[in-house]
């Protein structure tokens, strides 16, 4: 898996305008991040466009990266996802994605294991999140995973699940609420 400590070091060096470190950061993370973008755009050339824009943003945002508060790989993935969602929200973008909503997608496409380099609280957080996803109702979990993985809007979710828009919106809303409630209670926050 991508080692958060190593990626964090490369982001901080990039913030100090070390171009060689930035190139290394790209080499280490681009294949995984292109996969993230492709799951949303469904088209390779669009995904590479998203990757380009995201790395321009990462170079600039690196100076504001907070090494204490932020998980580096998740931070980069969030920048890529946001860019991909902006891209597919444009009216002129036609998507031909194959949606992966099998039950196994969660474990194939995300890494829940704890590596030895992980800070203990991050490993714990991952463990809780995975457990809490399992506790969601089936339809709520499916809606959240599809939306996250493929960047589907409420409308696209409703089409794909052949369910009225209002119902899908409430699955998403309730799913997020339950997830937050579950993780908070694992952490001992009331």
């Amino acid at each position, binding site marked *: 898996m991508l080692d958060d400590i190593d990626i964090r070091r490369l982001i901080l060096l990039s*913030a100090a305008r070390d171009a060689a470190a930035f190139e290394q950061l790209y080499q280490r993370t681009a294949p*995984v991040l292109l996969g993230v973008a492709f*799951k949303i755009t469904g088209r390779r050339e669009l995904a*590479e466009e998203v990757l380009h824009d995201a790395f*321009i943003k990462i170079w600039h945002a690196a100076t504001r990266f907070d090494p204490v508060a932020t998980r580096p790989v998740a931070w980069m993935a969030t920048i890529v996802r946001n860019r991909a969602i902006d891209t597919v929200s444009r009216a002129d973008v036609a998507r031909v994605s194959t949606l992966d909503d099998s039950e196994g997608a969660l474990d*194939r496409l995300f890494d829940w294991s704890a590596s030895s380099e992980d800070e203990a609280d991050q490993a714990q957080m991952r463990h809780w999140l995975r457990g809490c996803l399992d506790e969601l109702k089936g339809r709520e979990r499916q809606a959240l995973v599809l939306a*996250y993985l493929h960047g589907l809007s409420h409308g696209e979710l409703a089409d794909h699940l052949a369910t009225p828009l209002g119902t899908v919106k409430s699955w*998403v809303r309730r799913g997020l*609420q339950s*997830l937050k409630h579950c993780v908070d209670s694992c952490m001992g926050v009331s």
Partner: protein
Amino acid sequence: MKLGQSPHLDALCGEYLLGTLRGPARARFERACAQEPRVALRLQHWQHRFTPQPSEAFRMPPTPPTWQRIARDLDLRRYRQPWYARVGVWRGWALATSAALAVWVGVVMIDRSAPAPAMRPIATLASGQGGAAVVASLSDDGRWLALAPARPVEAGPQQSYELWLLPPDGSAPVSVAVMGQLGTQLPVPAALVGRLQAGAKLAVSVEPAGGSPTGAPTGPVILVGAIGAV
């Protein structure tokens, strides 16, 4: 109403991270993140807990032109250290030299640790509108330039700052460096060593990411100051 006080703040953070917050609502949320620390903190809280780690199992190596475009658009060449400034090169050179000397004359101790260059202020760059000034200092050997702003100032996400030398003869400005922030220490380009002299001026302009696309300042000049006696 400010989003920070909204009872839906958690729901908004969740839907933003999930990607289902779209259109004007998404734009409004992003604006609030930039303007309201409470919203930004709440989102960071969500990000920390609810963003799963992407798996390495699904990898798609990008095609080479994508990196080439990134490097070109950011003009990364400007940030690369010349070969003679890299520590590794000197370390390798030192090792080879030490080994050679040891063979020739036995054990030789070499102390070449140079002291950090002494920096002397040469100019105060100001906006002319009463903003905080930036002090420019030059190393005694003229090879290093440092900029020290009164408080940290970083370029926006789509911007870089570019430092220019305005020659005393009024000829075209010469680019000294492209910077992501105003507080920095940078090597003076070899062609400009010795030219940061009294009579010339230093100026900072705001440019697109990676620096001026034309080689001349294109954006607003935010700081300028004359170089005093060096």
